[in-house]
Structures are given as structure tokens and as C-alpha cells.
């Protein structure tokens, strides 16, 4: 019995997904090295990858249903951490945000990054029951409640970048929980229309302050906006990306934008710009393709999940990853304002790589149990 199980496990283990994740994260480590060879972030990242691989396997070979079952405990524990991080003395304040907990000997970790997993599990647990009707108002309120607790605490840090990455989790879950299609379309239309309207009204009434307008101008016209102030990050990122050209810039290494410190945060938020400078359009396109395959593969796995809960877990993860990729790369390409969201599997940071690995571990675990009932 054990032997049969083991054999099937190996057969159903998602090798492609795992390999893709490993390749992207190794590629990311190489870019972290390119960004700042002397800073040692790439070594830390390699250690992080080792730890993450172990954790991913551990999650993959654990029955996700057991974990979903005890999700409320995780969720509660996560909330406690989000409260603890706010306590001065325990939470470390970096750049005006108190979102890190220092762990002696291990460095520091970011509870808001890990909290995504219990939140996904809680949402999947609640919305995972077989559906008998369209989405009710009560369900929506409960879903919002699950989301609002961690998001509210994160906003207190304050870390708006992390906070907004929680919303796609709920959006995907609601979308797959029989929310009426006309409601979705109406919300989209209304949302799209309200942005310019709010802009015009906001500027006229003075509700949107000049410095806030400036931030939007940076996106609309980065070249003529305040390139030394608000627009600095966006402009330098655009330069770095553009400089990469088709095959990568000839001015690499010591002459690169990141090593001359023109590009800020090159190993974390702007790792994509580093990739663009070093590998050019060719490398970036391959990376985006890898993400596309990874996400499609996850969705494919979701279709074959043994139950609705498993499907929702994977799809929420897809939503979260896709959103983060779009926000991060969009920021690096000057399409979106600067928001501190890491690029999954690429950005340096133990918390980010670990939480992404756990998420992928869940996806593997769910696929492993596709014939088990």
C-alpha cells in the first residue's frame, strides 16, 4: 500500500511546476547577484531557496485538507503576529514602516507576507462547500471579514503595497463562487468610469493634493515629471529597462544602473529592471513566458483538484501571484505608480520566497491528491 502510494505520488508529483519555480528563482538569484555582486544578497537568497525547497516539499507531501481543517488556527496565529509587529521594540521600523519582526540568528521576517496563506486557506475553507445557490450577501460579508482583519492590521504598519495584494485573493474566490456575471461586469464598468471622474473631481475640489497629482503625472509623462523627486524611481527604472535593448546592455557590471546606484532597490522592488538591463527584451520575454506557463500550469492543476476547496486554494494563489507580477513589472515599466510589492520568485527576501514556495507546495499537494477521496 505504501509502495503503491509512493509510486503514484512520484508519478503525480508536478515536476514541471517545481522545475519552473526552481529555474525562475535561480534566475532571480543570478539577477540579485548582478544587481549588487558585493552586497551578499544573492548568498542569502540561495540559503533562502534551500530552506524554501524543504518547506515546499514538506507542504507538498502533507494533505492540504488537514491544513485547511486547522486553517483558523493559522489564521489566528497570523493575526497575532500582525499585532505583535506593530509593537515598537519588536517590530522593526524600516523606511517609516513597521512591518518586520527580527528573529535572533535568522534575520527578520515579514508577517504580512505569510498571512496570505492562512487567508487563502480561510477563504477556501469557507467558500469550498459545494455550491447550491448564487453568491449571497452574507457570504460576501464573511469573505470581506476574513480579508479585512489582516488588511486592516497591515494598513496600520502602514504597508499599502502588501495590503492591496490581498484583494485579488478575495476577488478570485468570489468570482468562482457564483457571483452574478452582470455584477462583475457592472463593477468593472463602474470602476473604470469612476477613475477619471474621481480624478477630475478630486483635482477641482483639491481633495487630490498637488504632490499626489505629481505621482500620477509621473506615470503619464515620466520624462517631464519631477525626475529628481517623485519621478526618480520610475524614470530610472524606465532608463534601466530601455537600456537593456534587445539582447541586454553592453554596459553591465560596474557600469550598470544598479551598481552605480541610479536604480533604487535593485535587488528587491526593481529586480525586473535589473533583469531587463542584463538580459534585454529576449531575457524578459522568456521570464514573462515562464510566468505564463507557471500560472497556466497552476490553473490546469486547479481544474483537476479533488474538491472545490483545493480548486479555490490554487486559484486564489494564481490570482495573488498574477496580481503581484503585474503590479511589480508594471511599476518597473513605468505603467503603474511605485508600490513596494516583490516580484514572486525573483525579488530577494526570505519571507517572499518562502511564502511563494508554501503556495506552490499547496498546489502540488492538491494535485497529488487528485484521485484520493
Amino acid at each position, binding site marked *: 500500500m505504501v509502495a503503491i502510494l509512493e509510486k503514484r505520488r512520484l508519478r503525480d508529483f508536478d515536476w514541471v511546476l517545481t522545475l519552473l519555480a526552481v529555474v525562475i528563482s535561480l534566475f532571480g538569484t543570478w539577477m540579485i547577484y548582478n544587481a549588487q555582486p558585493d552586497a551578499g544578497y544573492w548568498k542569502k537568497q540561495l540559503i533562502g531557496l534551500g530552506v524554501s525547497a524543504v518547506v515546499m516539499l514538506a507542504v507538498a507531501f502533507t494533505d492540504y485538507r488537514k491544513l485547511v481543517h486547522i486553517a483558523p488556527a493559522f489564521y489566528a496565529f497570523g493575526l497575532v503576529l500582525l499585532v505583535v509587529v506593530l509593537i515598537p521594540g519588536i517590530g522593526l521600523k524600516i523606511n517609516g514602516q513597521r512591518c518586520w519582526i527580527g528573529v535572533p540568528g535568522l534575520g527578520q521576517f515579514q508577517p504580512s507576507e505569510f498571512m496570505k496563506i492562512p487567508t487563502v486557506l480561510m477563504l477556501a475553507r469557507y467558500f469550498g462547500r459545494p455550491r447550491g445557490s448564487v453568491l449571497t450577501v452574507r457570504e460576501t460579508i464573511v469573505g470581506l471579514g476574513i480579508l479585512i482583519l489582516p488588511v486592516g492590521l497591515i494598513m496600520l504598519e502602514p504597508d499599502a503595497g502588501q495590503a492591496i495584494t490581498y484583494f485579488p485573493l478575495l476577488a478570485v474566490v468570489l468570482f468562482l463562487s457564483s457571483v452574478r456575471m452582470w455584477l462583475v461586469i457592472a463593477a468593472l464598468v463602474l470602476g473604470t468610469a469612476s477613475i477619471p471622474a474621481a480624478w477630475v473631481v478630486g483635482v477641482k475640489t483639491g481633495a487630490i493634493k498637488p504632490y499626489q497629482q505629481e505621482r500620477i503625472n509621473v506615470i503619464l509623462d515620466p520624462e517631464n515629471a519631477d525626475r529628481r523627486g517623485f519621478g526618480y524611481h520610475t524614470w530610472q527604472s524606465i*532608463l534601466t529597462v530601455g537600456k537593456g535593448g534587445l539582447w541586454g546592455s553592453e554596459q553591465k557590471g560596474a557600469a550598470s544602473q544598479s551598481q*552605480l546606484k*541610479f536604480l533604487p532597490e535593485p535587488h528587491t522592488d526593481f529586480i525586473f529592471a535589473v533583469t531587463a538591463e542584463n538580459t534585454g527584451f529576449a531575457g524578459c520575454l522568456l521570464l514573462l513566458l515562464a510566468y505564463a506557463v507557471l500560472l497556466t500550469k497552476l490553473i490546469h492543476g486547479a481544474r483537476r483538484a479533488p474538491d472545490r476547496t483545493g480548486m479555490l486554494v490554487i486559484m486564489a494563489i494564481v490570482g495573488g501571484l498574477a496580481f503581484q507580477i503585474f503590479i511589480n513589472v508594471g511599476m518597473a515599466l513605468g505603467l503603474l505608480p511605485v508600490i513596494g510589492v516583490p516580484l514572486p520568485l525573483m525579488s530577494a527576501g526570505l519571507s517572499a520566497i518562502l511564502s511563494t514556495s508554501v503556495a506552490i507546495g499547496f498546489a502540488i499537494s492538491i494535485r497529488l491528491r487528485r484521485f484520493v477521496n
Partner: protein
Amino acid sequence: MKFEDETQNLKGRMAIINALVIALLVVLGARLYFLQVVRGDYYAERAENQRIRRLRIPAPRGAIFDRNGKLLVDSRSTYNVLLAGEDMKGKDWNVLIEPLSDGLGLDPGLLRERFDEAKRQPAFEEVTVKEGATPADIAWVEAHSLELPMLLVREQPQRRYPSNGTLAHVLGYVGEISPEQLKQPRFKDPDVNPFVRDNPYRPGDIIGQEGLESTYDRYLRGRDGYREVEVDSRGRIQRDLSLVPPQPGQDLVTTIDLDLQLTAEEQLRNSPNKRGVIVAMDPQSGEILALASYPTFDPNLFSQRIGTPEGRREANALLRDPLTPLFNRAIRGRYPPGSTWKILMATAGLQQGAITIKNSNLVCGGGITIGNKFTRCMGSHGSPPLRLAIKKSCDAYFYRLGLKMGIGGIMQMVDEFDLNKRTGVDLPHELVSWTPSPEFKARFNPRDKEWRDIDTVYASFGQVYDFVTPLSMLRAQVAVANGGRLYVPHLLKEARAVAGAGPFPERPRQTFDHPDPKRLDIPVDQHDLVVDGMWAVVNEDGTGTAARIAGFDVAGKTGTAQVVGLGKDTGKNKDHSWFVSYAPAKKPEIAMIALIENVGFGGKFAAPAVHNIYQTYLAKAHPDLAPAQAPTVAQSAQHQ
């Protein structure tokens, strides 16, 4: 799927999510294509521009020497501590005052003043915190680069001029080119100044603003080199990419003899009012050996301290000084020449035939009556010949000579001696003398425009209608001394060649570019008579015996120029004391003019000054004659 339900098309919804994910990635890919492939070259260039900086290496400016190779002006490297305005945008300046005044030993009040001034300017880039920083200051700035990253140390070649204002009016000074100057053809148009083609002027350039520094800026200026470096986002240099060393400017050798110059300045410094001009010239070439104008100023003020509020205050005080120390009196001062004018009158009178060598006697009579007005002579000389009239400076003789020549003759003389033109000396801002003519009177005295005989009388002894610059007067006198060659006075002996370097071609040797002297037709016998009269002024019982030197036949003429009407010649309205001179009389080697302002009689002040300069000259050129001796009877008799 095991969990399809009746309430929704789950498969379809998942497909929508999948499509949405792919669509977002496609949007990113399209943007990437635009940035990297379509606009890649543009951004690459922009990135290069912020990475690579070209730092100018200022070329050392040529040094300036005297005719014997004594150094007059050079440049040395100094270091300034600056504050980068870019880094100070929107920051509180006051927090810097205490650390800076402590660390660099500056007065906090002064620092505050500089900051306030900088903040008032709309677009300042840098504020000078300290000039002439010491090695200790530089070390302090470097040690505090983390706390005070806005501080910079910049090398600045600085001009060093002689102290005490020696030669200030000749050398001039350097200063930053002004925005107005940059628009002038001289600094822009290659047709006007061919040197700008290879070596254009840029904002911030240090150029000659006055004196020889200005006239010969094109030779003195070097060609800046540059260093191409890679910088990081804070402008810190990461590594060198290329280096083009600067080509130094050409050294100037002037015609000035520093020993004569120092003696000349000493004479003015020791004069009662410490005001006046002395110019010494080589009468065989027009080379200026000494040019002193007092009061003087310190050119180092303009080359070194003008960037500071204290320096500007000092400069403003100089500009407003009623004694006009900035003013080169030799070329910008217009003075009535007094009796020195008589030499030119005598020469022209003979030339024009108003008097002859055989019969040069004119009545003195103690004065002259024109209409009902009597104009007196200072003495009573009977009916003297020209030689005696010069020796005794008989005014009435020259009144009558003037009347014989007429205003037309006097104007012809003025024109012959170029007194109505610039001398063409190689210094900027030379003024033209005012000389007698009916037009000048009409302008000068509009109530009584008509030219009368009395006006001719005034014009003939160097008063009222004659206002000459000392240099133009000396030039005319030199033409009398050398027999009629009117040289262009000049200060440049040569600009030394500079070898080619890197991209810069060789710069050849240059000399003073002047036309041949204008030749006046002065017959030898007429010339000899005038010279003999001037010799007698000094060596017989003339008015200029104070200039006498045994064995060195000094010729000269005193002048006492009325500043205001007769009888009011006291205090600051005292007469100017003149002396023009050359020696040896028959074969002149050196000519001089001295003007001591508002002290009185020419023989008493200007002649001894000239005497002392001759002593210095003799000590160098004829050491055997140097010790001052009383003239022997034999020598005097020889010239009788």
C-alpha cells in the same frame, strides 16, 4: 471536474481568469517591446549621459614676465570648498552654519550672509563656503562626506599678482566672463576674434578683464582639458574613462623693466598726495619700460576675493573712491599739459616757419595784452631766442608764437603729433586727449562760441583747451627726441610659443603687431635746436635742474598745469607738476613723463622723481655713470 455546480459555469470562469492572466502578461510584453526595442537606443543614451561626466581640467593661464624674465604674474592651484545647491533644495541651511564654521574656521555671521545671498538667487548651483582651503580643510571635508555630502572641494587655478598694487594698471586682472560679455562679438564671433574658433568661451570661464590680461587674453588663455569619468547616482566618481590633459596658455614677456617700475612707483608713493603718473619708454622703439599710476589697487582682489561678499564690498569701495584708484591715469587721465606743451609748439613753430633757426627771437615783455586783457608771463625775458624761451619757460614768448602760428597751425601740430588720436597702446579703454579747436571751444563754452586771439594764446601754452593723456604726450615728446618717429607705445615683447599637446596644435610665438612708426618731417637743425633748449632746462640755469645727472645729458621740460584759475592754486586745487624728459639728449635711450597731481611747480616735484628713475636706469645700463655727481664746469661749457 468533480465540483461543477449548477449555479455557475465554473470551467468558463476559470478560463476567463486564465485569459486575463495571459492578457496582463501580454500587456507587459508589449510595453517591454516599446521600451527596449523601439526606444532602447534613446534610453541607453540617456542612461549613458547620467553615467558619464566630463570634468573640465582648467588649463593653466600663461605667466607674465618683465623684459628681463622676472616673474610678474603666475597662477597657482588653490582649492575652494563649495556647497552643491542641488543637494540643498528645500533643506534648512542654518543647521550647517555651526558645523561649517567650527570645522573650517569661518565666521558664522559671514557664512550666514553668504547663504542668504545664495538663497536670494533664483538658480544657484554652488555656493562658495571657503576660498583657499588648506590641506586640513580638505581633509575635514573628506572626513565628513557622509554627514555633509553636499560639500565639494574644487581645484581653482588662481592668479597671483604682485602685492602693493605694483603694475596693477598694466597687468589688469582676470575674472569670470559675464553673460553680457558672452554675447559680445569679441568673445563669440570668429570673424572678429579668430581664436574663438578653436577655443570658444564658455560660461564660467576665467578671462582677462583689464590690462594686459584682457588685451592678450587670447595668448594667455590655455585650452582646457577634460577627464571623462563614470559617476554614481550621487555624482561620486567610480572610475576614469579617459583623460585629455590641458594645454597651458602662452607666457607673456612684457617690455616692462621691473626695477624702473618699482622706482617709478616709489616716486609716486613718496609724493605729497601720492597721486600721479610716471611712464618710461624706449624712444627708439616705443616699448614701455615703466608705467605707474597712483593711487593703485590690489588686482588680487578681483582674481581671488571678488566671489565673496567682503570682496565685493571692497571692490565697490574702490569703484566709488573719489581718488579713482582703478583708473589708469596714463591712458585715461586728461590733464592740461602746462609748459610741456611748449616743446611741441617750438617744434611745430620751426616746422611751419613761424620762427626760424636764424631768427627765433620773439618779444616777452612780461606779458601780452589782447583787447583790454593783459595776460602776464611768470618773468620778464626781454626778447628771448627759442633756446632761452624753453630754458626759462617764457610764457609770453609762446603766446606770440601761438598767435603767429594761429589756431590752424596749432591744430595742424596736434594732428601731426597724433594728439587727437589714441596712441594704440596695447591696453584697453584708452581715451583720446582733448585738443584746442574752435569746435572744442563751442562745445566747451556754449555761451561764447567764437574763437578769439585770447583763446589761441591759452591754447599755445598748454592751458584751458589742452587736456592730454600722459601717454599721448610722452609719445609726442619721444618723436621730438628721436627726430620724428612717432612709435606706437606698447607693452608686449613676446608671447612665447607653446608646444602642441594631444588634440591641441602648437601655438606659435607672437610679438607686438604694430605698424611702422609715423614719420614727422623734422629737419635735423630744427630738431637740434629744440633738443638743445631742453638740455639747457636741466643742465644750465633752467627750470629742471633737479633732474641733472653728471655725464648723462638729460634733456627735459617742466610743466606746471593750472587746475583752476590763477590765484586759486592752493590745497587740492594746486597745480599739477609735470616733467617730460629723455636722455642722453643727442642719442636718447630712455624717455619719461612724470605728472604729480596737485602739488605745484613742475621743477620741484616731477623733475626729482624723474631724476631718481634715471639713477636706477644708470645703475643697470651704465654703471660707470651711476654715482650721482654735481655737473662739472667742463661738461656744461661743452654744450653752451
